[in-house]
């Protein structure tokens, strides 16, 4: 390309009218076309296929699990599963209504413990002056807690609740699960609060809002969709936890309500522990029931997430 350019310019210096005629002189348009002969194009195609292939590979486990659940658990789905108690060995029929209720109660109680605690500590971390030692210690602790082995949370709740109250209970299970929910809620809520534009905070303070009013009337409502996402993630994780419940809520073949009285201080069934117990049994009815319980659990998490999404969408629109 250099030679024609050079000749051009030397010509142009003698003929001043020439340069405006073809402003694209010296541009080789063949350069702009894609061609398989160029390495750039080849690498592009190769990487595209690589990424697509990896994505498919990563999706295989997810879809195979969902397919197996639908295939093996779907057959067993019936109303009786939701209303009846677990069957004894060799008994036909039965259900796991008490385990569904138990999981709902344990997760709800755990959420009651971890949501206020998590959001309040997130507010503290987000509002503490930059460079605050205490805030960075709390943040570090929360990060350590995200990788906390779930069985240790169970051991902790066993020591702290089961031994002190004298028995396995839904409360003990909830305490164990809440420890696992706490870091997810705290860290995502902190991020969500930090994402609120500084100018909104400034606006509130400029209006004469106190710190409390700024947090409750501006920061938390604005960060709500993000906080909710964290809560949903935590709930999804909590619903499937088995190990911490083995030490704390144990299992039960009976309803939590007896004589019209709800007792949370007794061993409580949960879907996760039911799957764990039944999957290893040599009886076909129990094994099928474990598959059905797994499907129900996945659907419960899915429904919770859908509700959460529509809630946060409504918040954004309003």
């Amino acid at each position, binding site marked *: 390309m250099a030679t024609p350019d050079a000749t051009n310019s030397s010509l142009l210096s003698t003929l001043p009218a020439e340069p405006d005629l073809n402003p694209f002189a010296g541009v080789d348009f063949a350069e702009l076309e894609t061609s398989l002969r160029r390495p750039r194009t080849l690498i592009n195609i190769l990487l595209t296929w690589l990424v697509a292939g990896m994505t498919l590979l990563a999706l295989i486990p997810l879809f195979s699990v969902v397919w197996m659940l639908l295939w093996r658990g779907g057959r067993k789905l019936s109303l009786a599963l939701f209303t009846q108690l677990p069957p004894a060995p060799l008994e036909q029929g039965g259900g796991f209504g008490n385990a569904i209720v138990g999981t709902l109660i344990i997760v709800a109680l755990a959420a009651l413990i971890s949501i206020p605690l998590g959001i309040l500590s997130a507010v503290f971390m987000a509002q503490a002056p930059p460079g605050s030692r205490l805030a960075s210690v709390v943040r570090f602790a929360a990060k350590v807690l995200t990788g906390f082995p779930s069985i240790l949370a169970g051991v902790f709740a066993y020591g702290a609740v089961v031994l002190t109250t004298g028995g396995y209970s839904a409360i003990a299970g909830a305490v164990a699960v809440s420890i696992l929910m706490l870091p997810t809620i705290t860290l995502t809520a902190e991020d969500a609060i930090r994402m609120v534009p500084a100018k909104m905070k400034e*606006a*509130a303070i*400029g*209006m*004469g809002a106190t710190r409390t009013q700024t947090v409750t009337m501006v920061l938390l409502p604005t960060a709500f969709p993000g906080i909710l996402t964290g809560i949903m993630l935590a709930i999804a994780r909590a619903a499937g936890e088995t190990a911490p419940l083995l030490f704390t809520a144990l299992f039960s073949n009976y309803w939590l309500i007896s004589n019209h009285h709800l007792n949370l201080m007794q061993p409580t069934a949960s879907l996760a522990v039911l799957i764990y117990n039944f999957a290893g049994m040599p009886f076909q009815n129990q094994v099928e029931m474990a598959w059905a319980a797994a499907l129900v659990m996945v659907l419960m998490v899915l429904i919770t997430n859908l509700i959460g999404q529509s809630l946060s969408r409504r918040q954004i629109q*309003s």
Partner: protein
Amino acid sequence: MPVTIETKEHPQDGKPRGDAGRKATNDNVVIDCHIKELYYGTFKAVRDTAIPVKKNAITAFIGPSGCGKSTVLRCLNRMNDLVRGFRFEGHVHFRGRDIYHPSVDAVAVRRFIGMVFQQPNPFATSIYNNVAFGLRLNNFKGDRHAKVEEALKRAALWEEVKDKLHNSGLSLSGGQQQRLCIARAIATEPEVLLMDEPCSALDPIATRKVEELMLELKTRFTIAIVTHNLHQAQRVSDVTGFLYVDTTQGGRTGYLVEFGESKQLFEDPKEKHTKEYIRGEFS
């Protein structure tokens, strides 16, 4: 914060106006601000700036970037308290009371002296809730709807939003958002409205609307405005203070060069720096 002697003489019983002292002759000065020295950490940002803000008038602060005019404005309702390392010597008297006196609550000050910011900053909630925000803060018991409507009408926004009060404030255009912020600020009827370059993010048409609005609002409120736009200061303000940067003592310290009636300051400035700045002969 050093406390001036005059302040100590004022009664601290929560009455907004002290009767004693030197401001008896200057009755219509709502905010009397005198900054001797103002620091951010060790950086001396402003020195020797005294500006009286008069009732039902528009006081403009002009000057080159970095001259501290926004800093001075933010002193008037203690927004600088949020900045770490902020420290100042001097006084800011609001109706005769020193708002930096230890017994004064900064939050309460901001309810009397509202603020409109450079970037429109509505909350991520409905138009209605944005305007009602201040009413909620103050636990306003009366007719909230009437107040919201009144504020939006005064901010010349009512006609444009009356059918979509429950849409998000963020769905409005920039100019509308700024008028929404003005409506939000005046809904609680503050005495003074501080405006920190309120039009710098707006197009000329929106700017014109906000300027008309300011002239309208000054009959009820007292306004202090920081602006980069000399024409804007000339169009809307009654009195103008010109601040300039002093680089002679190391660092960049802003100070008040000239203060006076806008007409006089723009047509016949007394100081050399003012003359140069207004004519655009500026390095």
